[in-house]
Structures are given as structure tokens and as C-alpha cells.
């Protein structure tokens, strides 16, 4: 029991405490251990964890094949893929001039070939799939069901249009005309009176047109109606404010979880 429970908790506590407080001391041995060796150990263990994950995958997929579970035919491909990658990593270099060790990053090796023509396209395409899902969800699911969602979608749309070249070719005057029309629709839905609507739209159109003639229709003035400026303002200020409050919250959350780990209050890593 002590091996399975108390020692891991002790390790977390001691290592966590040492790394945290090394930030506050000038004791050389202590500091250099944390800065150099302890971090190296961490990376080495993380590499072993990757091996553990890989071997576990091999185990699960082979079991699936041996027991002929549903879809076992596909598991064969997973095992083949894993073995192929290990062969490229450890058995066949493909380029005799390159030394073992540098072959994983050097040109002309089988490993590099595998990266360029297998890992890269598959990984990139998996991510690119999402473009399609975003498109269909934007048509079928993104609804302005309340004020919050409206704000979110409007700021998202302004960023999306304002960031790309198309947006910088849309004149601020176009946006102002658009706003007048939207205001008209709003007036109509509130008062349900055609006269009011007509008056407000007409006066809005006249106002925009007159000021347009006075200012000479500049593309990017007034700035708040020019999408590239507007998106820049949104992402530099209100967005930063929102992001910052989340950042502080996340920081606190991580801090408190870390402290709970170090003090042994939180023990989820051993399944408790």
C-alpha cells in the first residue's frame, strides 16, 4: 500500500515544493538542480510516458485483432502504421551519410519522408476538416437566441470580415447605409408603424449622404464604421479586457490546483 499510495503523494509534495521554492532562493546547488537536472528528468519522463502511450496503443489494437472484435480489420492498419514508423525511426535510415540520432531531423532520410508524405498531410487534413464543420454549423446552428449570443456573433463577424482584404475594400459609408437600414428594421419591429419607419430610414439616408458629400466619401472615415479599424479596436481593447479577466481566473485556478497537488489534498493522479 505504501508503495502505491503514500510514496507517490510524497514524491509530488517534495518535488512540487522544491521546484516552487527554488524560485526564491540563491542556494546554488538547489537552484541548478531545479533549473537543469529536474527539468531534464521531467522531459525524460515525459518521453517515457509517450512510449507508454504508444505501447499501450499497440497492446489494445493487437488485442482487438486477436479477439477479432468489431472493426479489427482496421486495427491492422494502426499496428502496421506504428511498426512502419518505428522501422523508420530505428531500423532503416535511408541515407547512409546521416548519423543515427540526427536522422529524425535531417534531410533525405526515410523518417523525413514519412514526415512529409504521411504525418504532415494526415495531421493537416484532420485539422482542415473543421473548416467544413464551421461552415455548416454557421448555417444551421449559430443562432442569435439572446443578447449574449448576438454580441458574440457580431464581434466575430466584424473580425472575420475586417481582417481580410475584402473587408478593407468595404467603404465605411456602405456600413453606415447598412446600419440605417438595420435601424429601420428595428424601428419597424418596435413601433409597427410604416410612417415612423419611412421617416427614420429616409432621414438616416439623407444624413449619411449629405455628410458623405461634405467629407468627400473617404474609404476609411469615420473610423468607427470602417471594418478594419473597428475590428482592430475590438481585438485590442474590449477583447483584451475580456481575455484578461479569463486569464487571471485561469491563473488562479491553476495556482490553486497546483497548491492542492503539492499539499496532497488533490490525489486524482493516483485515481482517487
Amino acid at each position, binding site marked *: 500500500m505504501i508503495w502505491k499510495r503514500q510514496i507517490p503523494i510524497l514524491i509530488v509534495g517534495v518535488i512540487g515544493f522544491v521546484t516552487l521554492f527554488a524560485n526564491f532562493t540563491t542556494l546554488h546547488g538547489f537552484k541548478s538542480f531545479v*533549473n*537543469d537536472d529536474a*527539468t*531534464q528528468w521531467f*522531459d525524460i519522463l515525459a518521453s517515457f510516458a509517450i512510449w507508454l502511450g504508444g505501447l499501450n496503443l499497440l497492446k489494445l489494437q493487437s488485442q482487438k485483432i486477436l479477439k477479432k472484435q468489431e472493426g479489427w480489420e482496421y486495427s491492422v492498419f494502426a499496428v502496421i502504421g506504428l511498426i512502419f514508423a518505428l522501422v523508420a525511426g530505428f531500423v532503416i535510415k535511408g541515407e547512409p551519410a546521416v*548519423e543515427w540520432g*540526427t536522422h*529524425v*531531423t*535531417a*534531410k533525405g532520410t526515410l523518417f*523525413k519522408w514519412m*514526415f*512529409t508524405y504521411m*504525418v*504532415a*498531410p494526415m*495531421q*493537416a487534413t*484532420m*485539422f482542415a476538416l473543421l*473548416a*467544413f464543420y*464551421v*461552415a*455548416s454549423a*454557421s*448555417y*444551421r*446552428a*449559430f*443562432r*442569435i437566441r439572446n443578447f449574449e449570443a448576438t454580441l458574440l*456573433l457580431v464581434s466575430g*463577424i466584424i473580425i*472575420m*470580415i475586417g*481582417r*481580410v*482584404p*475584402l*473587408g*478593407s*475594400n468595404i467603404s465605411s459609408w456602405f456600413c453606415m447605409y447598412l446600419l440605417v437600414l438595420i435601424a429601420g428594421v428595428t424601428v419597424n419591429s418596435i413601433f409597427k408603424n410604416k410612417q415612423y419607419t419611412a421617416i427614420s430610414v429616409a432621414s438616416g439616408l439623407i444624413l449619411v449622404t449629405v455628410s458623405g458629400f461634405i467629407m468627400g466619401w473617404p474609404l476609411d472615415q469615420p473610423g468607427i464604421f470602417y471594418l*478594419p479599424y473597428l475590428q*482592430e479596436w475590438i*481585438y*485590442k*481593447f474590449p*477583447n*483584451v479586457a475580456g*481575455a*484578461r479577466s479569463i*486569464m487571471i481566473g485561469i491563473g488562479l485556478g491553476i495556482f490553486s490546483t497546483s497548491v492542492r497537488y503539492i499539499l496532497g489534498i488533490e490525489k486524482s493522479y493516483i485515481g482517487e
Partner: protein
Amino acid sequence: MDFLINTILKLGKVDRRWIFLIIAFVVLIPLLFPLSLPIRATATTQLVYDAVEKLPHGSKVLLSCEYGPSTKPEIHPMVISFLKHCFRNGHKVYVTCLWPDGQFLADEALDEVANNEFQLTYGIDYVMLGFRPGNEAVVKGIVSDLRKVYTIDSRGTKITEIPMMDGITKFEDFDFLFSGSAGYPGTIEWVQYAVDQTNIPMSTGTTSIQVNEVMPYVQAGQVQGILAGMPGAAEYENLIGSPGIGTSGMDAQSVAHLVIVLFIVLGNLGYFIERNREKKQRGY
């Protein structure tokens, strides 16, 4: 009018595979037949350009590549343009990678720009220091003693035998840092462990998704400008007057954004009509 409303409602129930098809065409067609929309730089992109322009001829620039194949379309054009900009202004470029895949892609970029376009000499005009594992520990290492982290470069040459490494022992010996970053470790680690401690100027290019995370640092002045995603890359390409992959993707990007916005608007139109009808049917 009724016809229009019915069409909108009917469209709302369309199989989503039609939408997939539309998006595929919307992206593909402008790639094949470009519209050449003019590109205008946003202020944050201009800041990056100005920061590089301000460096005196022959400055020592550190370029760190932290991205992989899945984010290549966004970051790679930035790295290429940044290299072009540096070489044109006669700067020396030192390349490091915090991501293992970053090295493949950085090699590709150096091949294209330094070898083919500028025909520069390795070891004198540019050097590829390569990937070192350890995430922020590598950044910390470069700040305290670069030669401990890098005893050899990516080609196996001893650092002491590389002419342009003369006088470079730590992060403060560089004049500028550019990080092409797609996540952890990347820009944020460079800010926290290197730039905040030394005051060496730094700019960054990040994936669109990361922009929001990095923005507070840019706003606070810790980072000088940011190239945001592929549009940021395109703007930078245009500032240095050498359009590339980023620029050619911009038409597709513009049209795709427009179509997605139209989708949102149309979808919500259908939603409103339906809601109104339901209200009427219920009798209020």
C-alpha cells in the same frame, strides 16, 4: 414574398453535405482564378515591419520556429517573408526550433530563401542551430548560456567553428527575436523567460487561434506587433513587396469568410421567420 420565405425555410433543412460542397468550391475557385483583391496592412502587422526596418544593417536576428505541419499554411509564409526581409536588409539570421517538426519546416524555408533566392553562405549569413527538447527550459538555457544548449548546430558542426557565432554566448547578444509560433512552447514562453528579463525587442507571428492569448502581451508592449494568421502573413508579404503563398490564399480566405457570414445571416433569417410563425400559430 411567401415564396422567398418558403425557400429560406426549405434551405434551412438542406443536407449539410451541400454546404460542405459549397465551401469546397468557394475555397477552390479563387485559388484557381485569383481576384487579386488589394491588401492593406493592419496596425499590428505594420508594427512588426517597422520593428525589423529599424534594425541597423548587419543586426543579429534570432528566428525561432515553433510550428508543425498542421499550422504550416499560417506560419510558414510568415517565416519565409521574415527571412526575405532580414536578408534584404543584410541581417544575420540564427534559427532555433522549440518544436521538433519546426526544424523540417525551417530547413525548407531556408532552402527556398537563403539558398535559392539570395544565394547566401551557411555559417556566415545564416545558421541553423536546430531543435533542442525541453520547452521553456531551452529558452531559459539560451538566456543564461547559449553554448551550453547548443554545442553543435543542426548539421553537426561545432559551434566554435561557425564564423557568425563569434561573440554570441547568450540571448542578450542578439538584437531581435522573431517567434513563429503555433502554441506551447512558443511566443508566451519567449516573453516570460527571455524578453521580460532582458528587454531585447521581439515580434511574433502566430496562428489565428493563438492571437487572443498573445494579444494582452502585445497590448502591454511586451511584444512589438503580431502577424495574425494567414491574413497577417499576406499583409507582411505585401509590406516587403514580395507576394507569396499567403497573398495567393487571401482571395479564397476573403470569399470563404463572406460566405460563412452569409450563412450565419441566412440561417438566422430562417430562425426568425420560423419563430414568428410559431408565435402566430399559438395565437399571440
